[in-house]
């Protein structure tokens, strides 16, 4: 029975990592009444975790992550408006839309490192230019955005956002603990040895990419639904991927807790000063990025792991 025992033990960490933020978000609404703001915060947690799956486990930085977000917002918004789908179903379809675009962009994986990052950025900007193009006004309403005010429902959107937080954290924990996650790490650290050892490198990476894209698609869908009226530049905003990447880096990439904590902390800072003085917030996170790269490439969790490791080695001595 030891194997089930250790399996149980292995489930404890991810369960706590999922439940704590979910319960915290569920309770927060009773303390802090700005529901839209909490919805956005939950969306950013999910986005930071989506970046985490991609960059943390494969080393490919999705600079154009906002493309999936925007596609999700548009796909779900259009199926609501044109086919009258219930919003929650539309959110799932938005996620599928994100994954579909991810599949279309698969050739970008021929690029490595920084070129991949810029390739995805260019692809997402291209998608934005197409969606927002006045020539496509009959389909996407071009530069004038979508109006989903008829589908607005207080509570439902927030509930979905919390659900998405849970999904994204479960996805990260699964990836991290599974054989799949181990192969991804092997790929990140040494793709040649990994493929020599029989790992199907492109396929594993592709799965991570699809999961990551689907999360962004759903995040965008919920964003559009909760915001109810949006313009294309609001959902195809490169600062969305920027913030998600900064939050994930700040918390600690490759961990389950890091991006959650990073997103909640920095998004709170953003709300405290970012709305009234966006330049000061931009200055702060710019400086944070520079300092992180130069001095702490492993983020907040890097420090935490350092402490935890010293504690663990002490405990082992005591045993």
């Amino acid at each position, binding site marked *: 029975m030891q194997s089930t025992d250790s399996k149980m033990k292995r489930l404890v960490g991810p369960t706590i990592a999922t439940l704590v933020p979910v319960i915290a978000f569920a309770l927060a609404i009773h303390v802090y009444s700005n529901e839209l703001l909490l919805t956005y915060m939950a969306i950013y947690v999910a986005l930071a975790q989506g970046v985490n799956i991609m960059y943390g486990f494969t*080393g490919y*930085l999705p600079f154009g992550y906002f493309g999936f977000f925007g596609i999700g917002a548009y796909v779900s918004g259009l199926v609501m408006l044109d086919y009258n789908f219930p919003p929650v179903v539309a959110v799932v379809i938005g996620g599928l839309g994100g994954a579909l675009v991810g599949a279309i962009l698969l*050739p*970008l994986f*021929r*690029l*490595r*490192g*920084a*070129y991949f*990052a*810029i*390739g995805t*950025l*260019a*692809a997402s*900007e*291209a998608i934005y*230019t*197409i969606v927002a*193009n*006045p*020539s496509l006004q009959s389909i996407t309403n071009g530069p004038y955005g979508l109006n989903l005010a008829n589908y607005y429902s207080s509570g439902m959107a927030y509930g979905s956002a919390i659900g998405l937080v849970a999904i994204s954290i479960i996805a990260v924990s699964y990836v991290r603990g599974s054989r799949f996650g181990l192969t991804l790490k092997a790929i990140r650290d040494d793709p040649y040895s990994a493929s020599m050892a029989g790992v199907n490198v492109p396929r594993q990476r592709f799965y991570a990419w699809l999961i990551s894209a689907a999360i962004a698609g759903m995040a965008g869908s919920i964003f559009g639904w909760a915001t109810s009226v949006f313009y294309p530049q609001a959902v195809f905003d*490169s600062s969305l991927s*920027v913030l998600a*990447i900064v939050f994930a*880096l700040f918390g600690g990439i490759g961990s389950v807790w890091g991006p959650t904590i990073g997103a909640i902390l920095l998004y709170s800072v953003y709300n405290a000063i970012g709305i009234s003085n966006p*330049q*000061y917030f*931009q*200055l702060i*996170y*710019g*400086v*944070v*990025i*520079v300092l*992180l*790269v*130069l001095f702490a*490439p492993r983020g907040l969790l890097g420090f935490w792991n350092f402490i935890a490791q010293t504690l663990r080695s002490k405990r082992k001595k005591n045993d």
Partner: protein
Amino acid sequence: MLFEYAIVGGILLGIFYALLSVGLNVVFGAQKIINLAHGDIIMLGGYAAWELYQTYNISPIISTVIVVPITVVLGYLLNRVIAPRLAKSSDPEMLSLILFFGLSEVIEALSSLVFGNAERSLPVTSIPTAPLKLFGQAYPADWWVSALVAIPLLAIFLLFLYRSSVGLQVRAVISDSVEAAVAGINARRISGLYFGIGFALAACAGVWGVFIFGGVSPTEGPAITVTAFAIIVFGSLGNPIGTLVAGIIFGIFYQLAQVYVPSWSNLVPYVLVIATMLTRPQGLFGRKQRIA
């Protein structure tokens, strides 16, 4: 008529775009640093031109010369601070991307604090010339004057790189910095200098960007960076001459799109960069050595 207009205009603008992107390729040159703050350096060049004209009534043509020494020194100092740390890391190219992205945010934030968010533009009368008439079409003065300023700048840069002794050292460091150091070249100082020259070329382009882009604003940086990146990838990373040709071809493509399908013209740089990366990653003039 329209076709000729697009071609001639494309060449004039293309020379400007060559100047706009060559600095990014130069910064990439020695240490494989991807300068995501390139567009922000261009933006700063634009503000320099604006301040110099509005406060001291200095012509943009002279401002182009004034910004050079300042940016060379700034670039050199920045390089000496960051290069050693990047070199120590496991993935310098990727980290340089994130680092310069952070720097770009800092520059953007500081500029909007100092200059405000409103776009600033310079009157065309600050370059005291008339539109150029050619083949029965008139081209705005800023198009051909900026091309006329860019040509000697690019020529001086190429002469420096391929005909001077310092340029020889630069090329030695680019091809192999360890071997160059063995031969007695101070590789760090040389790459720092070359990095600074990349900044200076960007700032010079920025002075003229105020006219070509119709103004300068703190948020213009990232879009310019992507365009410049598209051009240098198209013309081969690390090859400045490739960038010049690619800039002119880009200018012609862009003008053709502007004339015939204006609402889709913004797609040109993105399609260009993706198509190049996927079909010929080494670019127009690259040897097949670098897998992008």
